[in-house]
């Protein structure tokens, strides 16, 4: 068969078959079109204000590298007048983050953009390597995720930026939609499909010593409609320099499972990735109000997890769901204390539904929660709401039983970070780590 011509310019040889519409086009037309489509997403959802200072969450991976390159190009071409900066988080994972940060540094130089690196070490006094040495390989992703959420907000605050853009692509979002369906987590499903998510205002939150002022950090995903394949092609044709190794931990069970499913779907019908995204957006509109809001939330769109635990998350959830089912059939019901007395008018019959829901959320939050990586440095991590915390600050059992309905955001007593509890999760985790610290060093008798 004779080589086909590009459908757009009718001139060059077609090199690329677009997954979303089967168009055969040449590389220059592809890169132009890719940029144009990102511009359309940005303009149709009014993502940016003219002159806005915007931080690009940069991990050194393909998505954030492409995002930085596209935004830089578009900012000049479309005359948006944005003040772009790169923001990276250094978790302190030797053999992984140190290399990817080198890529970010090269990109910053190539694109001539300022770069700010915020490290766990400087913020918390602990690098991830130290955390792993302390608590072992199991469950350390929770620490990483919780720390990352704050690190990004703090980094944005240091830069005086109110808007962080992230490299989440269509495949990531589709994956998250399926994953949260499997987990029964509607709030996260809804959140994953919004182009803009915003941390509720925490403008008045200042740390006691006035070091950091929290701002209302808006997050957005300009590449929500871009296929991962096309991002790779764009990076290839633009000869972008990125770091492609994944975190040294393997995928969490649910995400791994959803990821395989998405890749298989793409093979059967390439358009289905965008269809899943669209379905997710439509479903978000069907999520009842009381389920919809998860202010302190994470977009679970990374790919990290604990290698040792592969399958563990699903199994843990399975156990919890089963226990609950047993309880429901026996009519015992799990002892659920509804967080608010105003909810007492609910019918008794709904108590089981509640219990299941709680268990599901609990399961979802138990460990995979923080397990996002890379881009997810841009995604805040959160934990189940603990309405009970005020009365029982150390009640680990009690905190897990509550539903996450309307959270009241206050600030952490220790660091001033916005939190629905007296002490934020990061401070709680740190407390645990610090308590144990001397023991590791001494260990004499």
């Amino acid at each position, binding site marked *: 068969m004779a080589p086909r011509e590009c459908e757009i310019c009718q001139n060059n040889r077609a090199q690329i078959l677009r997954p979303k*519409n*089967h168009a055969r086009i040449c590389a220059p037309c592809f890169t132009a079109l890719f940029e144009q489509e990102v511009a359309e997403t940005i303009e149709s959802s009014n993502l940016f204000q003219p002159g806005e200072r915007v931080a690009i969450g940069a991990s050194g991976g393909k998505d954030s590298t492409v995002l930085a390159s596209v935004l830089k190009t578009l900012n000049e071409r479309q005359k948006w007048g944005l003040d772009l900066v790169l923001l990276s988080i250094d978790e302190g994972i030797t053999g992984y983050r140190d290399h990817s940060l080198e890529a970010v540094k090269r990109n910053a130089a190539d694109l001539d953009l300022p770069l700010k690196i915020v490290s766990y070490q400087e913020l918390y006094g602990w690098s991830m390597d130290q955390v792993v040495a302390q608590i072992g390989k199991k469950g350390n992703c929770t620490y990483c995720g919780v720390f990352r959420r704050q690190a990004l907000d703090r980094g944005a605050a240091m830069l005086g930026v109110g808007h962080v853009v992230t490299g989440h692509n269509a495949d990531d979002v589709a994956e998250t*939609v*399926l994953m949260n*369906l*499997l*987990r*029964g*987590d*509607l709030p996260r499903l809804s959140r994953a499909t919004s182009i803009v998510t915003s941390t509720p205002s925490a403008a008045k939150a200042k740390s006691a010593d006035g070091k950091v002022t929290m701002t209302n950090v808006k997050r957005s995903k300009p590449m929500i409609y871009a296929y991962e394949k096309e991002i790779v092609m764009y990076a290839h044709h633009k000869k972008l320099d990125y770091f492609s190794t994944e975190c040294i931990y393997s995928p969490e069970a649910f995400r791994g*499972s959803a990821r395989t*499913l998405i890749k*298989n*779907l793409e*093979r*059967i*019908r390439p*358009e*289905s990735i965008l*269809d*899943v995204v*669209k*379905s*997710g*957006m*439509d*479903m978000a*509109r*069907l*999520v*009842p109000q009381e*389920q919809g809001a998860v202010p302190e939330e994470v977009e679970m769109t990374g790919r990290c997890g604990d290698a040792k635990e592969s399958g563990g998350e*699903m*199994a843990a*959830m*399975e156990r919890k*769901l*089963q226990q609950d*089912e*047993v309880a429901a*059939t026996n009519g015992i019901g799990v002892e659920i204390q509804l967080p608010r007395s105003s909810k007492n008018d609910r019918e008794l019959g709904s108590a089981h539904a509640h219990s*299941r*829901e709680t268990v*599901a959320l609990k399961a979802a939050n138990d460990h995979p929660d923080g397990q996002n990586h890379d881009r997810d440095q841009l995604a805040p991590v959160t934990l189940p709401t603990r309405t009970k915390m005020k009365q029982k600050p150390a009640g680990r059992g009690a905190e897990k039983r509550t539903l996450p309905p309307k959270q009241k955001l206050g600030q952490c007593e220790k660091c001033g970070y916005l939190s629905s509890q007296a002490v934020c999760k990061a401070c709680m985790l740190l407390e645990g780590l610090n308590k144990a610290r001397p023991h590791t060093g001494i260990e004499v008798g």
Partner: protein
Amino acid sequence: MAHDPPNNPPISGPPQCARCPLPSLAVLRLHPLCPTHITQYIHTKTIKRLETFRTRYSSPNDPPRRLLLALSFGVSSTSLLQILDLHLAGQRERVGRAGVEVRVLWVRGFNEGEEGKEEGEGQGEGRMQRLRERHPAHEFATLELASVLNLVPGLATSLLPNPDLDASTPTSHRLDALLTSLPSASSRADLKRTLLHRLLLHHASSTHCSALLYGSTTTLLAERTLAEVASGKGFALPQLITDTPATTSEGGVQILHPLRDVLRKEIQIYASLVSPTLTSFLIPEQPVGAKAVVNSRDATIEGLMRGYFEGVEEGFPAVVSNVVRTVGKLQVQPKLEREEKVADCEVCGLDFVQEGEVERSRVCGGCVRMLGHAS
């Protein structure tokens, strides 16, 4: 030191049934159960879903309400018929009459052709005849899938823009032409399912049935949830997966899935216990492994999800139920913004949100994808 608890079951042989002293046959939701209690468990789970049709013996003169059971000769719908049959026979025995009347409808042209070889017509008719003899208390009917093109107004015009195939062409030819014109095996499977649903609903309504019963198990509903999401029909999940509330409107039909709390493997165990055996009625199922091959041209989204959930059901059955329960939490109607209104899609008949200026939005996004009208 031995810590053997008293009454330890013998090491060989199955553990004792959780509800009686007999040996168990299988473990259902963590409980080892004997055949009798497995049957009882499945019956209870199923009949519970039909609460709205509980007989009210206070009004003996009301005509019994009719239920239309969609039969595919798969293990689930055939078992559902068996369960209903026994349930109604029990009612008749106790109070002299049954509260509902069951009509069984088999649609020809739906299951066949999956691997290119159609089941002989006689075979289908034979099954139907034998089933009728087995369950003489119920009415049985057969329809052609293609007949939906004539029965549902407007459907043919929105589906068949081809002027060569006008109303004078036999419907089966028109359906074949339509299926051939579709871009993929997934689209063909989608269209057949869509047409089947419309035909069943139409038939239920025109024969004054109060409800349409599907034999869908939890596992099937979970598969369909993910398949519909992947086909751009996330907006319609509550309409497709959740049982609809009873309607009072004229011709309104409630859609129910009485096996929605039963897993596929559970209904398979149940079916194996039914006596006389059900196997001679069932259309043998293809092994899933073959369907799950994603690189073949015949791979469908439905088949992919089938293979996927087979694994999940094996290891994590509660996760399967959780998917279906999650869909149950969604509202039916979205919050509408200005310039938006809800319309029913001309192809699938489901409510969808018409967005502003989109031209020709009489067909929902999912059906546009299915029909493959690029642009």
